[in-house]
């Protein structure tokens, strides 16, 4: 089954939409069948038979009753659909935020996702971790959506409808996934060259696992050499322009243009899902980002093979 | 001409909406209340030019060519005075107050809206001048009154737009 099927909801907003959509689709299907049947009947019953003379059929210019009927009935259908929609709109958009809600700030960038958990002091990228929400005691995740550059849109079909990230126009959305697992999605508002590879991965975790993840994210990475000295790779990282764009907690690297790399190795993918995180892909990415995601904003730094190996080794210590 | 006026109204409406939406939203730079001074005199000139063009056409219908010419030229003069006033205002804003189209949202929306209107005034003046040239080359006759009536509708429209622009920029926005 498709991991991005809108008809396989796993969270209340997606559930509400699913329920509404069944009602709408059934209504619309009924209308279609009725009108199509009439069309088919007309096409068959009233075709000109070759045995016909050339006389014209009775000319009927109109009928007020019929016009009234097929005005009133659609109006009633419209009212029903409208009321159903209004209810779901309100239930999703105007849902109050409970105090138990997890707050995440999502910042859209050209072509990656920044996730900040302000109350937990976590800054990460591209892979969103949230706790499972028990319908009896909900612990939803409320997201504030911002953009650092162009318009983006956060769409994980099984969790919720999409909401746009627009610069200077903060938006909010919320999810409360009832089952653990990995949920996929991607940017749904054309934002530039690599819009297609701005993928989303949402890891919904049972409470204990989520808390463990939070703790790990809050720690500083242990990336020094056993005697405490700075590794060769770290030196390359800090002396090349890497620090202009990237941040690693506990080091002089404080750039915010690119993803935070503090816990890079805790992620399954790199380049916002464009490639799995393995030694070879990571090395290739640093060597030439365009080989994996042509047009991404990260430049090829022109490192020598030796420096490349050192930096890759360093980044692989960032758990 | 009515159709053209509808289309132009739609364009101006969008610029007016943008202006209204952005009132008070400039992040920095001069504010309207600091630098704008309502151009009352020049507005009166422009609005009275509607009266003079109307009178001109009436005179043409009546066949009084000399009176027509007087009113027509007066219309052009009043319109030109209005443009002169706009130019003066802009020179002051740019060189004295430091407000340009790129300074802030107020600058962008102000120059766009007032500029769009001034552009339409200019186009109108060109047409009016063309008619004046026709008059002086003795090509203009009484039968042309209907066409000049249509042209004057455009001129009335330009004046009506100024009423709206003036209200939005110098009254509401300040």
């Amino acid at each position: 089954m498709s991991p991005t099927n809108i008809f396989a909801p796993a969270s209340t907003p997606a559930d509400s939409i699913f329920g509404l959509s069944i009602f709408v689709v059934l209504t619309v299907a009924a209308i279609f069948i009725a009108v199509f049947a009439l069309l088919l009947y007309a096409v068959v019953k009233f075709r000109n038979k070759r045995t016909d003379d050339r006389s014209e059929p009775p000319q009927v210019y109109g009928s007020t009753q019929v016009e009234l009927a097929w005005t009133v009935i659609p109006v009633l259908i419209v009212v029903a659909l409208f009321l159903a929609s209004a209810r779901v709109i309100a239930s999703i958009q105007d849902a109050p935020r409970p105090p138990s809600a997890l707050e995440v700030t999502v910042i859209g960038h050209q072509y990656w996702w920044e996730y900040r958990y302000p109350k937990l002091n976590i800054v990460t990228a591209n892979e969103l971790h949230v706790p499972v929400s028990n319908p009896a005691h909900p612990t939803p995740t409320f997201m504030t959506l911002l953009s650092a550059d162009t318009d983006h849109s956060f769409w994980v079909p099984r969790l919720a409808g999409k909401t746009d990230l627009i610069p200077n126009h903060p938006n909010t959305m919320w999810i409360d996934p009832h089952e653990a697992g990995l949920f996929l999605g991607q940017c749904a508002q054309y934002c530039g060259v690599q819009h297609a590879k701005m993928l989303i991965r949402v890891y919904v975790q049972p409470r204990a696992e989520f808390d463990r993840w939070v703790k790990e994210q809050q720690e500083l990475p242990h990336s020094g050499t056993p005697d405490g000295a700075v590794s060769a790779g770290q030196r390359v990282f800090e002396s090349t322009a890497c620090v202009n764009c990237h941040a690693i907690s506990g080091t002089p690297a404080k750039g915010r243009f690119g993803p935070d790399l503090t816990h890079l190795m805790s992620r399954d993918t790199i380049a916002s899902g464009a490639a799995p995180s393995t030694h070879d892909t990571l090395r290739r990415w640093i060597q030439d980002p365009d080989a994996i995601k042509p047009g991404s904003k990260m430049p090829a730094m022109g490192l020598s093979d030796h420096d490349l190996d050192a930096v890759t080794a360093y980044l692989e210590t960032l758990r | 001409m009515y159709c053209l006026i509808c289309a132009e109204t739609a364009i101006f409406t969008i610029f007016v909406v943008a202006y209204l939406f952005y009132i008070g939203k400039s992040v920095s730079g001069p504010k309207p209340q600091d630098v704008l001074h309502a151009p009352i005199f020049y507005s009166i000139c422009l609005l009275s030019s509607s009266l003079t063009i109307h009178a001109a056409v009436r005179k043409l219908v009546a066949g009084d060519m000399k009176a027509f010419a007087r009113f027509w030229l007066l219309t052009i003069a009043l319109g030109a005075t209005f443009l002169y006033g706009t130019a003066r205002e802009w020179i002051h804003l740019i060189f004295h107050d430091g407000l340009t189209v790129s300074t802030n949202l107020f600058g962008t929306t102000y120059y766009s809206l007032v500029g769009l209107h001034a552009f339409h005034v200019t186009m109108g003046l060109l047409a009016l001048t063309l008619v004046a040239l026709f008059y002086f080359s003795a090509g203009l006759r009484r039968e042309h009154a209907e066409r000049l009536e249509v042209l004057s509708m455009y001129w009335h429209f330009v004046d009506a737009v100024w009423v709206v622009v003036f209200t939005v920029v110098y009254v509401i926005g300040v």
Partner: protein
Amino acid sequence: MSTNTIALTDFPVSRSFPLRLHEWVTTVDHKRLGLLYIVFAMVFLMAGGIEATIMRLQLIRPHNDLVSPEVFNRMFTMHGTTMIFFVAMPLVFGFANYLVPLMIGARDMAFPRLNAFSFWMTALGGLLLYFSFVGGDGLYGAGSAPDVGWFAYAPLTSRTFSVGHSTDFWTLALLVSGIGSVGTAINIVTTVLCMRCPGMALRKMPLLAWLNLTMGGLVILAVSPLTAAQLMLLVDRYLGGHFFDAQAGGSAVIWMHFFWVFGHPEVYVLAIPAFAIASEIIPVFSRKAIFGYPVMVLATIAIGFISMSVWAHHMFTVGMTSGANTFFVLSTMAIAVPTGIKIFNWLATMWGGKIRFAVPMMFCVAFLFQFLVAGLTGVTLAVAPFDWQLGNSYYLVAHFHYVIVGAILFAIFGGFYYWFPKVTGKMYNEPIAKLQFWLFFIGFHLTFDFMHIPGLLGMPRRIYTYEPGRGWDIWNVIVTIGVFFQAAGVLALAANLLLSYFRGKAAGNDPWDAWTLEWSTSSPPPAYNFAVIPVVRSRRPLWDLKHPEDPDWRYE
């Protein structure tokens, strides 16, 4: 109604090619300008089709590398912009230009020179847009093709994110053609309101005239906001303005509002003339008067009005308040009511008739079926929460192509075949036309029926490639296959019409036994349309002539 008029094809002297070219380039005749619009549109249809084919080939499998992301992004931008502004609009204007004066008994449009000017402005816009392909990249290039999407959302179009001049090609090409569009609209409105023949009160006018009148009004009100927005974009890009500059407090959302205030009525600008064509063809081939003429007129006007109030249903996901979202749900659903009424009226016209399935009628029946489906998927999208899932996905792409290709283009193809005999004096080849219909019909359904499914499975639009394992692969293959059937269909249409022009049988004035004024003059009509301006008494003047014992004006 004179039948022995001199047609242009009867000239005894054969004119040289340069002379004939000069005639066409300087023409102000509404019929020739109509044909120029249509030929122009067909050329650009090929261009847009090639762009679509490239996209579909790239998407035939995940992680394909037929074209780079840069090229793909240019393809969807150019495809959308071309098809809307340089195919659909010119087709609609071409039909209006050719038919409206003929059907209201006039000799030409109200402003023939404005008419010519408007056409050439549209042509200039098209050439300007396509020049972008050869303008060239780099600091010294004129700029490459735009890649910001056909609705060019801010701030992607700002100087920061759109380096070079590619966006300017988009802006300027549409500004120029927009001037042409408004000019044509002014012409149509004035012609219909002021130049009807004696006896043709507004309520005796053919539906085609009413619908094109509505379309003209919509163009005047809707294209202007686009012009305004584009001027603002130019101010931002060239004069350092901040209309859409988030850093200075500007708003990306306001571009969306301005664009869609244009964008939504625009689709009705395209659809309403297609309705007009269907409203002429269906009665003639059902051998009955149109059912509910007054209601059809009122429904059209209602659609025109309501269409100006639904625009933000393109913006359900941008974060408007629940109140605003709810309002636009209501207005969007409201427009479904008059639209549905029209479908029922066409159906009722066929009901009890003696339907002849010549190719124009086949296209119109397909139009009815496909417009029904398109309208219903539109109703599903009007449900804002459902749109939160399906907006900007392939379901949406399938929906609007269903409207524009399945409804509008099918009706237009029907119109091509219906009026071809009038325009050229020759009949087209019916068996080939039927083949062409089925090719195109199969291709259309292969592509656009199955295109809904990836959308339902989470595939967004405007992506140059996609991940495997999401269940999208097989559907993309089927969608791509359909393209080739459609291409074959369109080429067959062009071939049939071209060949029939040279070798078709003579058609006579009125091959379909129809009832509106254009069928009373010769095929092709002379330059002056009618030797004597007709005087009419009903909506179907030729019916009155053919059935003097039972004329229409007794019942109207």
